[in-house]
């Protein structure tokens, strides 16, 4: 639903780094997106295609890596990787705790890198 403002930011950041690196054409942009976010990949690309017309990122492909969700068990400090679907039933694999698994990450939208010329 909020793909448009997110896409605007992606384009701004990519164009800024292209200018700083003297690039004149962007071919792909790699994003790492946390498992708690609700982003539709298809719409992200669709908006990006629209917004990037007449820029050096026209035609660039968005590569989206799902970073999942990272928890920490409050009891034994074990770090646990999980997904939105498994979040409610997640147990600590070390001490079997079912509660007090603190969410460490999963909310992020991170631009990792881009292929450019």
């Amino acid at each position, binding site marked *: 639903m909020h793909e448009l403002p997110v896409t605007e930011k992606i384009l701004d950041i990519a164009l800024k780094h292209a200018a700083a690196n003297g690039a004149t054409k962007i071919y792909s942009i790699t994003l790492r997106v946390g498992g708690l*976010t609700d982003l539709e990949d298809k719409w992200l690309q669709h908006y990006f295609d629209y917004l990037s017309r007449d820029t050096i990122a026209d035609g660039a492909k968005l590569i989206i890596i799902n970073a999942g969700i990272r928890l920490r068990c409050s009891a034994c400090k074990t770090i646990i990787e999980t997904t939105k679907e498994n979040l409610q039933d997640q147990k600590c694999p070390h001490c079997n705790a079912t*509660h007090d698994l603190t969410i460490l990450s999963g909310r992020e939208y991170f631009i990792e890198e881009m292929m450019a010329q």
Partner: protein
Amino acid sequence: MSNPVRLIKIKEDIQADNDALAQGLRDELRQRRTFLINLMSSPGAGKTSLLLQTTAALKNSLRMAVIEADIDSTVDAQTIVSSGIEAVQLQTDGFCHLDVQMVRQGLASLDIDALDLIFIENVGNLVCPAEFDTGAELDVMILSVPEGDDKPLKYPLMFSKCDALIVNKIDYLETPLTNFSMDAMENRVRKLNPGIQIFPVSCRTGEGIREWVGWLAGKVAAEKV
């Protein structure tokens, strides 16, 4: 000779700009001793009803105003103003959430230093407002009983980030119209957010409002010290 195709490392967080602006707004409002609270829910969960109950309970002790976000209407702002509380209407033009810049637009129409407590009534949905920091001191969400006790399963981000959860329309629990389980809902929410404050209320009957308002007034008073 043209440049070679190459990999450029970026390592930049899309939310970083808004997060920095949000922290800046929080710091500013702390200095000015004005408390900003961000209220989120689905459409129809009772944001405006809760605001009416809350401002009525606090209007002898606190100076308050409301920033109303609506995609394209002024109905909620008119309701608030009719109750004697100042309200600013932001029309988000199709945007599904508020960010710090939009909140600042709303604040620009208010005399911040003459106010103790400002409510943001965020756009009605459980997805987008969860992802953008508004600069508020507290994030509070309302879940209403008719929406069902499974909502923490569907919208974990929203439930994981809020300081308080108000469960509205608890008068439905006494009718055969719902199979909502408060225990199941609470278990699911605490799994995501062990420290969250939960206030069961009915904006219609007034049940539970006193506990919620007492907690909120305590938070505002703590900021004033």
